[in-house]
């Protein structure tokens, strides 16, 4: 094993790319997944037939997106990704499939977290004349905040491993580095460095997430 041949600037560049991918796709996953999760939760517990239908359809779409393997999804989405961001490779090209894959996953996490919110508190808000929007903004989301932060942490950690898979199709970042050098060119040093970097990254993310959850827990 010889680490002297390792081109550290490549590793640095890849690390930054991974962080970029995680940052942007994480952000969009939350932006899309949070409302979707709230919608799933609200329509599931509603008494009206219209809402139940909405739930059934949404639930089906979410399930389909979650059952397609990510590596297949990337390939299948190539035309769509090209239209959306102009390219299907590199940092930019990997973000749309990541978001489309992670948002339904996160939405389910949101849905389950919201179910944990005490029904009595929601009822109390109703008894005080709160509208549905006010209940979501002022009761559901604040009460579920620690759980939501835990969900975001889990989702971003999952995204880290997804970025590695995106490396298979030239997605950029540490994953691409590991696959291009470590896997295809048998450069074990690069493989070890990339994987180690991702392990450290996941550790940091998880620790930061746990800290935030503890900070916002009031129970």
């Amino acid at each position: 094993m010889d680490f002297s041949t390792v081109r550290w600037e490549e590793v640095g560049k890849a690390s930054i790319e991974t962080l970029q991918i995680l940052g942007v796709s994480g952000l969009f996953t939350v932006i899309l997944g949070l409302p979707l999760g709230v919608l799933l939760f609200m329509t599931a517990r509603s008494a009206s037939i219209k809402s139940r239908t909405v739930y059934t359809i949404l639930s089906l779409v979410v399930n389909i997106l979650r059952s397609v393997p990510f590596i297949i999804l990337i390939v299948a989405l190539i035309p769509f990704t090209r239209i959306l961001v102009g390219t299907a490779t590199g940092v930019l090209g990997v973000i749309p499939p990541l978001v489309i894959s992670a948002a339904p996953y996160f939405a389910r996490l949101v849905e389950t977290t919201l179910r944990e919110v005490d029904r009595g508190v929601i009822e109390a808000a109703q008894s005080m004349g709160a509208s549905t929007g006010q209940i979501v903004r002022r009761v559901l989301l604040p009460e579920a905040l620690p759980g939501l932060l835990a969900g975001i942490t889990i989702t971003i950690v999952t995204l880290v491993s997804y970025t590695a898979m995106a490396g298979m199709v030239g997605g950029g970042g540490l994953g691409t580095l590991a696959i291009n050098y470590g896997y295809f060119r048998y450069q074990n040093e690069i493989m070890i460095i990339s994987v180690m970097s991702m392990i450290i990254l996941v550790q940091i993310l998880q620790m930061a997430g746990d800290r935030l959850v503890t900070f916002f827990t009031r129970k």
Partner: protein
Amino acid sequence: MRLIELKGLTKTYGKGKKSTTALSELNLNIQKGEIYGVIGHSGAGKSTLIRCINLLERPTEGEVWVDGINLTELSKTELQQQRRKIGMIFQHFNLLSSATVYDNVAFPLKLVNTPKDAIDRKVKEMLNLVGLENHSNKYPAQLSGGQKQRVGIARALASDPNVLLCDEATSALDPQTTNSILKLLLDINEKYNLTIVLITHEMHVIQNICDKVAVIHQGGIVEQGPVTEVFLKPQHAITRDFMMRDHEAGLALEETALANAGVELQTGVASKLVKISFLGNKTYEAILSRTVRKTGVDFAILQGTISTIKQVPYGQLTVRFEGDSYAIDRTISELTAEGLDVEVLR
């Protein structure tokens, strides 16, 4: 003045064969300013009843009138507006765990975009009222059960409601805390002339603070009226059952009393077993001894209670009179003339 009127309230859960009826054709009127208690066993429908008053539970049939408005006919937004005038507190308090005491009390005010300084004034006033002015920055998890319910009360009153609904508000609290919460409710009722509707399965809650009571059983009201009346002369078996559980007396002891009443008497001596009810200041007067001294009848007390109903003293004695049968009858009529309620048991 009538504040709450429930007309023909029916609530069924489920459809067809599987359906269960929680309330059937129930009618109830509650006057402004009174504390109205609904007592019933679990599953009797009392929880459904109180939740129908602010339509947390929508009745299958019937009308809910609060302050001259038929709530069942309102649109969603109109109903939200009306609900702001109906405060509610809960058995499990239902406070926002993520918000401080201050923010919990401010919650109903923020819903209607009250200006910040007005919120501040109101929240401080409410926290003073419930005695939690030093806890405003704490989170509910840091409070005791009684304190949590005080926050619940402060929150419910912050929007100046016309009525306060109490859904088993003291059932999760220990007896001492229960009494302090009941006292607070009574103070609030007197201070703001606030109408309070409460449901409970504990007779002593009714006895302590209610003006009127309704006994609910299998989705219908079996007995209702002023607490003193229902308490001293319970008509329905369910009502008597509640009294007994609370006094550890009632029927069981009365039966012993009846059995003991058959003691051998000298020939020529008549006896009569009677239940005498006192109400108000008469409870503390020497009416009984005065009367028997006049009529020359002897008496033995077999069972008795002297207590208060919402600060009104009352007493109930099961007494055996012995003596000349004419004199016994005269004693009974004299006692009745004094304003006591005398019921001949045997």
